[in-house]
């Protein structure tokens, strides 16, 4: 290893609270990165990984400050650097590729002037060479028709194109170190694969070092050699990729890896109980941060903070780093018993076509067909069965879900509930029984629970609407339901804003369940959640299915989740069904080439 490119020593970032005490958001970060090395920083939301990434550029968002520690780049102390020197460094020798390129590009400036700006600041090229160099850069990131792209504004590009422009801009200063903040999170899986390929190429070709932040360990292992795991603002484990994935030493790493659903094994992932501590609520300076959630905690974990224990090929912040290695295999998920379908068909969809545009009179006279968002859809769900509906954005999977829910009018075709109710009306015109028997759970519980209502009000409403009953009866039912979704009864007086993401999603599921439905429609209900929470929601869903013989239509873009959860699967592309069947059959021997490419994109 050559002399280090970037070193941090006990770097801590945080804020000073009302009592004038320092509160660390990230603490005691020790990192060393050599030239050309690639490091992946993995952690769940709120662990401070983005804060750390910005801190590596000696930048803190408003309200945060450096509480202590050193930061060196190429042997120079970045903390002591003048603003002018920092400006030269940022975007020059070290460049950031942002999470959401669509918002990180200035909307009022052409791509051209934004790249020129980077060249003017960070290269010695004369003005005359800017254009040709820009085209070169855009070609480098494999953007088609670079000359034309330069003239465009950010909003005129697709998400993948915007991300490529952001990468090109970062390359303008020929950096020694690239910092990436979840650059593929907003992209479709197939686009993600292309962007990751590109990044790998760039690293291989230019010997640029890279620090890649992501919540997705799959993405990280596709591009990085080393992996660091972050939890509650601390680096808890650090190691070579293979070693860390195969032999995680920290209990948190083990839990994290166990909670990731995998495509090649159809077992249910194991979730982690508890919740990541928030900065400022408790002082962990003389305790292990993972104490509350650790299954192997001993008295010593409460009395002293573990140091970084060096093992061959990895380092771990745990008192029992060596022992836990041996405990690894204890936690394995239960194999899901996939029931054979029950005889009763809950939902039968046939020849369904949906269109968003209302055909104008002129077009109807001309005999033009409307633009169909989804067409010729046919499938059925039986009692106690989970049907996974997979596809990328724009595949029409959400439209299909809305149509079943009655929020979107179908153009033609039929939907039948319980073999007798016609569902081809908008929800308001359906029989009350239909309204009650189909319930919907949304992707983002922040948006699907009314922030001005208490949990009690949220859960009482469907009961009052469909069944009525006395206040005390409703109240008792709410208590039972909260217990069923593993939430304390005391939560009934809280507001959604006082709950964590996973808890909110449990409430959303509970709201669907109090209506005693036959069919629950789930719209990406786990994708806004962290993996460990996702695993516990999946477990809950399966238990509820078994208890109440629910039929579930589960829409997701995540094949691994569908693999672990669903019995049947329907693959959707551009509004058409490409393939369908039992999950095991479809995923183990996909016939349609689109299914194959989707499966190949799973990391």
């Amino acid at each position, binding site marked *: 290893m050559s002399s280090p490119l970037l070193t941090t020593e006990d770097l801590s970032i945080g804020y000073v609270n009302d009592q004038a005490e320092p509160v660390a958001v990230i603490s005691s970060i020790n990192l060393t990165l050599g030239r050309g090395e690639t490091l992946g920083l993995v952690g769940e939301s709120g662990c401070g990984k983005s804060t750390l990434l*910005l801190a590596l*550029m000696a*930048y803190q*968002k*408003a309200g945060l400050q450096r509480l202590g520690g050193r930061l060196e780049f190429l042997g120079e102390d970045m903390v002591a650097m003048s603003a002018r020197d*920092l*400006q*030269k*460094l*940022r*975007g*020059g020798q070290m*460049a*950031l590729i*942002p999470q*959401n390129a669509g*918002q*990180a*590009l*200035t*909307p*009022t*400036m052409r791509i051209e002037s934004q790249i020129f*700006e*980077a060249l003017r*600041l*960070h290269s010695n090229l004369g003005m005359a060479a800017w254009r040709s160099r820009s085209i070169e850069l855009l070609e480098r990131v494999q953007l088609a028709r670079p000359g034309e792209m330069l003239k465009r*504004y950010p*909003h*005129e590009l697709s998400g993948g194109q915007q991300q490529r422009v952001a990468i090109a*801009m970062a390359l303008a*200063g020929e950096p020694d170190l690239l910092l990436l903040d979840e650059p593929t999170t907003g992209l479709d899986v197939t686009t993600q694969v292309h962007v990751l390929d590109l990044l790998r190429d760039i690293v291989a070709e230019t010997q640029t070092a890279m620090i890649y932040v992501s919540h997705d360990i799959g993405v990280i292992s596709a591009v990085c050699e080393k992996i660091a795991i972050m939890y509650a603002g601390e680096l808890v484990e650090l190691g070579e990729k293979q070693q860390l994935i195969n032999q995680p030493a920290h209990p948190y790493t083990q839990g994290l890896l166990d909670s990731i659903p995998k495509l090649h094994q159809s077992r249910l992932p194991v979730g982690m109980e508890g919740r990541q501590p928030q900065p400022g609520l408790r002082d962990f300076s003389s305790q292990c941060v993972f104490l509350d959630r650790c299954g192997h905690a001993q008295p010593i974990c409460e009395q002293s903070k573990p140091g970084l224990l060096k093992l061959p090929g990895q380092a771990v912040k745990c008192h029992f780093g060596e022992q836990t290695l041996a405990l690894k295999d204890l936690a394995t998920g239960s194999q899901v018993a996939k029931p054979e379908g029950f005889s009763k068909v809950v939902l039968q969809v046939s020849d369904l076509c949906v269109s968003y545009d209302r055909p104008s009179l002129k077009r109807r006279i001309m005999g033009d067909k409307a633009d169909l968002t989804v067409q010729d859809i046919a499938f059925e769900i039986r009692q106690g069965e989970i049907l996974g509906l997979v596809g990328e954005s724009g595949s029409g999977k959400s439209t299909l879900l809305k149509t079943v829910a009655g929020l979107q009018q179908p153009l033609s075709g039929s939907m039948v509930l319980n073999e007798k109710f016609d569902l081809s009306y908008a929800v308001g015109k359906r029989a009350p029984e239909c309204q009650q028997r189909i319930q919907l759970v949304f992707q983002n519980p922040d948006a699907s629970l009314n922030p001005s209502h208490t949990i009690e009000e949220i859960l009482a409403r469907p009961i009052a609407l469909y069944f009525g009953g006395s206040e005390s009866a409703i109240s008792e039912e709410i208590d039972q339901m909260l217990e069923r979704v593993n939430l304390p009864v005391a939560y009934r007086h809280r507001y959604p804003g006082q709950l964590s993401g996973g808890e909110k999603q449990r409430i959303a599921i509970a709201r669907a369940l109090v209506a005693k439905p036959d069919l629950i429609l789930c719209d990406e209900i786990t994708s806004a959640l962290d993996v460990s929470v996702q695993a516990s929601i999946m477990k809950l869903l399966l238990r509820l299915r078994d208890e109440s013989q629910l039929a579930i239509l589960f829409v997701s873009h995540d094949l691994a989740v569908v693999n672990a959860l669903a019995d049947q699967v329907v693959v959707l592309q551009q509004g058409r069904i490409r393939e369908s069947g039992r999950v095991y059959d479809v995923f183990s021997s996909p016939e349609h080439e689109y299914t194959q490419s989707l499966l190949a994109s799973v990391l």
Partner: protein
Amino acid sequence: MLQLIARRFVFALVTLWAVSVVVFTAVELLPGDACQAFLGQMAQGQRLDNCRSRYQLDQPAQVRYLKWAKGLLAGDLGQSIKRDKPLKEIIGPRFRNTVILGLSAALLGIPMAILLGAIAALYRDQRVDIWISGIAIFCMTVPEFITGTLLISFFAVWLGWLPGIVIMRADAPLLEVLSNIVLPVITLTLVMVAHIMRMVRTSMINVLASEFVLMGNLKGLPRWQLVLRHALPNALLPAINLIALNIAWLMGGVLVVEVVFNYPGIGRLSVNAISDRDFALVQAIALLMASIYIGLNLIADLISLLLNPRLRNQQGAG
């Protein structure tokens, strides 16, 4: 693009027409008519009928509206019965004076407001911001007639630097107007700057928190370049329409300012016209002010279209 501009134009014209109907109807609905007002409450019989037929007030409302509208299209505002003069002659010079007053205040105020707003946002919650914002609240909330009164007693009476109230004919030459408007302009500008500055500040704070400004920082952009090239244009875009709305609304305040300073503009004229119940004059002024408002909005729309690439692509955004 051209189609969009054309749409806005047509839309503005339709609104103007609708406003003319509203103004006409509203005045029409009020009890009494111009002749009654002219001749007095007690007037009855032949004199009233004569007057009405002379000014064609005995015709049905829609006929009179059409005549009025036709006249407007030809540039004829009509005739004031009370003042016995064509309205054009009455309004013309006073309208010029008000435009001079408003324009000076806007030209002085808008750049100042943008500058102060940007500074306040950049130094948010620091001493500069607290001072600027505090003074702005003060200017915004103290009624114009109080500011005006205070300014007069300070500059005119105490220091004797400037004329306190304006004593000039409505059709005074431009130079004389300009020498008289310092205090009215300051009064108007204070309110205008306060309102616009607050909007620019809020907008700028939002933009400064955006990801592209963070990205600009991490791209190594010097601060002033980041502010001028990236932040400010994006902060001003959503503010343009609001600035126009505010200016138009503050023109309502012109009325008070003109009375305070005895300034011969259409604001004071309208107050007089209402006191005299000179309905034709009121109608004409109301329509004129409405067209200023619509015109300002149209200009703001066009500027936004020119500066905002997103809007340009949005076909038929209305």
